[in-house]
């Protein structure tokens, strides 16, 4: 039997990826350029008894998915720039209370209302530093329609596996481009179930680290009763200000991601074996980068591309290794130098990091990248 194929937009693919992953609860607030996710799920979710809610604002949408997730639902919200800013306090709530959820954010120009229909990659720092306080961050940056579908599934899996919010952040170009997509068969792609308690209700503690850094999470209404708060908490979920517990819990929350970087971080290496120049790119910009690298190769320049698929946690190890091998790093991005800062941090001054930064709502074209590749001496 041949697989089901379709010609979809990135946002539509995201909605279908969520359904494949078992999403049964969505809450959102309309905002360009992410609204198609809402539109598809408002039609699809009720067909299988799932719930679609259009809330009064993005904060409410974030709150609703966190509440729903605590009952065991697999939850998604979608938004864009201004909405992402509004959600930030509650993304932090999801981190500290350790509630699985997926936040899909289409990157448009900013700050503020910025350029609602223009592409951008300027939310990548917001994905990590947007909410206050130390916290884990996972952010995936797909570059095609198929990858948006696949990465939304992976986002659900990671959020369940590590019991933490996960973001998927395509730029507006990826979110709105139409491409052929091949749907996996049911069961073909693994879907990670939530780790639920094996102990009886009287013994259950929602943050019991004797089960490891990711304690099982019971569902409200499943026979377990427990307390959830956004305050620093103890194993039993109740607030504490005890210094040693707060320190240990904060470190554990971050360690859930930091100790599992190799499991989470994904990337693509393109023509890197003998490369003198590496273009580091992500999202739609990587499509121009690939083209530019191909042209450079035709012209005898040993260029290659490292494509970031997981922006957070950042692929430090890989970039550090590259910095020890190449003569220069080129970073095209639709912001005024965000990934560039991370690359400079990883390159530790060993090689120059040359940026191409565009925030005018136009994509970065291969010519610009090629010219920069040629600047590396």
């Amino acid at each position, binding site marked *: 039997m041949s697989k089901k194929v379709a010609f979809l937009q990135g946002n539509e693919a995201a909605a279908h990826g969520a359904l494949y992953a078992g999403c049964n*609860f969505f809450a959102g607030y309309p905002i360009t350029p992410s609204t198609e996710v809402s539109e598809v799920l408002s039609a699809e979710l*009720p067909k299988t008894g799932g719930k679609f809610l259009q809330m009064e*604002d993005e904060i409410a949408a974030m*709150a609703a998915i*966190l*509440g729903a997730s605590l009952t065991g639902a697999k939850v998604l919200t979608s938004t864009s720039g201004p909405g992402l800013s509004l959600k930030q306090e509650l993304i932090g709530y999801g981190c500290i209370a350790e509630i699985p959820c997926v936040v899909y954010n289409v990157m448009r120009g900013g700050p503020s209302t910025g350029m609602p229909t223009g592409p951008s990659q300027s939310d990548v720092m917001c994905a990590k530093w947007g909410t206050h306080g130390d916290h884990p961050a996972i952010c995936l940056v797909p570059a095609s329609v198929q990858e948006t579908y696949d990465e939304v599934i992976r986002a659900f899996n990671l959020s369940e596996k590590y019991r933490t919010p996960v973001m998927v952040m395509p730029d507006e170009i990826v979110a709105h481009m139409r491409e052929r997509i091949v749907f996996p068969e049911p069961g073909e792609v693994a879907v990670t179930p939530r780790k639920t308690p094996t102990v009886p209700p009287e013994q259950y503690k929602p943050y019991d680290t004797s089960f490891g850094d990711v304690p099982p999470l019971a569902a*409200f209404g499943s026979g377990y009763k427990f307390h959830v708060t956004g305050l620093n908490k103890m194993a039993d979920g109740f607030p504490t200000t005890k210094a040693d517990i707060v320190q240990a819990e904060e470190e554990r929350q971050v360690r859930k991601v930091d100790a599992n970087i190799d499991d989470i971080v994904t990337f693509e290496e393109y023509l890197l074996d003998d490369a003198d120049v590496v273009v580091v790119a992500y999202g739609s910009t990587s499509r121009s980068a690939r083209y530019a690298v191909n042209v450079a190769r035709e012209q005898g320049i040993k260029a290659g591309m490292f494509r970031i698929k997981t922006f957070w946690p950042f692929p430090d190890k890989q970039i550090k290794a590259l910095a020890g091998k190449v003569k220069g790093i080129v970073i095209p991005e639709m912001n005024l130098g965000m990934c560039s800062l991370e690359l400079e941090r990883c390159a530790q001054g060993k090689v120059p990091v040359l940026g191409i930064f565009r925030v005018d709502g136009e994509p970065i074209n291969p010519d610009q990248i090629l010219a920069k590749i040629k600047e590396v001496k």
Partner: protein
Amino acid sequence: MAFDYDKWLRPGKLPHIWCPGCGHGIVMKGLIRAMETLQLKKEETAVVSGIGCASRLPGYIDCCTLHTAHGRAAAFATGVKMAKPEMNVILVGGDGDGTAIGGNHFIHACRRNIDMTYIIMNNYIYGMTGGQFSPCTPTGHKASTTPYGNPDPGFDIAKLAIGAGATFVARGTAFHANQIDKLIVEAIQHKGFSVVEILDDCPTTYGRRNKYKSVIEMMNRLKEVAVPVKAAEKMTAEQLQGKVLTGVLYKEVKPEYIEEYAKVIERAKAAK
């Protein structure tokens, strides 16, 4: 016989954090009696709050409890209830939490008419942060941020709830303790979004600044201003000056959201 509150309290959590004479404890007791009257199942009941002194209530109750972010209880609760309609969902919080930062969620929760109950403890002040004025602080009164008297007019929470579409709205006071559980029982039994405003006291940050010499004076004020709706019918406008109506203020049968959403599911399945 003495009422057995211990059955509903989490062991080892008393004394609670509230100040001497704070009415939040009286409201919590009323809620517990209501839960007992209705024989709610602990594992199938969620108590959801925002942030504030009043919002600390869920931590004491032995059921599924969710202490969310400032103002967001209604939105979290909406998620809980929509995802697990078989649960009883009870929201609790203060006047600031519910009508300032959470005002938008509050009115939309009223409008949707999801079968949940919201108990709002109105002590006319932001107690937890030390007594700044809230949207319910009466005009002219003193708060830490209105040292010359409050220029703002205050909200009437019950009217706000009725205007926004809540289908059951009641008001009680912390003084009229034996009425609290009865109002909450009726509210929980009502199908739809029900709001119970309890006029409360904050001796520490509000009483002190507004020349109430003691908790007792604050309680006496609640006793004096409260007029049961029935009694009010026989009173003149003049007699009702400065009074506040208590009891069930509004009740209406309107389509409940989860039932309406069930129809959406039916239509979607038919369209498949």
